[in-house]
């Protein structure tokens, strides 16, 4: 399989992630969309790394992306918990106050 096939999969996954963020009215779906987009970026990193001489840099970048995704998921879930507690809803459009 060439580089183009992997880039195509990554582009489609990225597009679906964007659709997931903008069409669903639920913060959990926004989180899922973000994870899809990060995964699409990772496929690109690793694919370009593989097809450009197989050095280490792309893989190291992908590892750091995974680390940051884990941190992001934990913080985002904390925020969602708090938002649900404050607004009793996790629709993104209901969250319209910075503080009460």
């Amino acid at each position, binding site marked *: 399989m060439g580089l183009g096939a992997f880039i195509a999969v990554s*582009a489609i996954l990225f597009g679906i*992630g964007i*659709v997931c963020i903008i069409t669903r009215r639920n913060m959990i779906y926004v989180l899922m969309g973000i994870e899809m987009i990060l995964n699409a970026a990772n496929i690109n990193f690793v694919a370009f790394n593989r097809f450009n001489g197989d050095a280490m840099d792309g893989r*190291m970048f992908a590892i750091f992306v995974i*680390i940051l995704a884990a941190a992001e998921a934990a913080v985002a879930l904390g925020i969602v918990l708090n938002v649900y507690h404050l607004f009793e809803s996790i629709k993104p459009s209901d969250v319209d106050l910075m503080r009460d």
Partner: protein
Amino acid sequence: MDNAQRAFYTLLAIGTLGLLGWGASSAGASGVAFGFFAALTIGGSLVCVWERSVVRSAFSLMATFSGVAGLFLLLGADFLAVAQILIYVGGILALILFGVMLSPPDPTERKLSRVLTGIVLMMGAVAWVGAKVSSTVTWATSGELPEPTTKVDEIGIAFLDPDGYVVAFELAAMILTAALVAAVYIARRKASDLNDPRAEGGA
């Protein structure tokens, strides 16, 4: 199962078979593996956008993450594939499933027209950009592919190499610590909440 649902899953099966057939015809056995993992990745994400129930969406995300891990394997990044399964399938998905418990069932949340329009428009945009890119850009790929090598020890050395990634590695450690402590701090119930009359009456 209504008609839209049936049509969606039929299309999904046809697309999967098409990917598998295309892979088999273009690159043989490794092509079939690529088609399988690509179908798992894209199909899982499509089901995630499509499904009404958050639980089904979260579990279909597991297919996406596993498919991406398989693609990493095909690209010779075996450590990344295992890390992907450990962290995404084992960790982040569990977090998301925990968040699902907050989400009250809301059968009207997904608007069929909105999701369909989104998918069609976005696929059109991706196809347009892909056509532009493939007709104008030539990637600077190295000619013949080197054999993929297992480099787990080299990854560990590169993490602690002063000429490598030691600064980024230590920063990532600090960020993880700060993020996890902050997440616990944000998510905890405050003492004043426990005396909230609403909480006493409700829960």
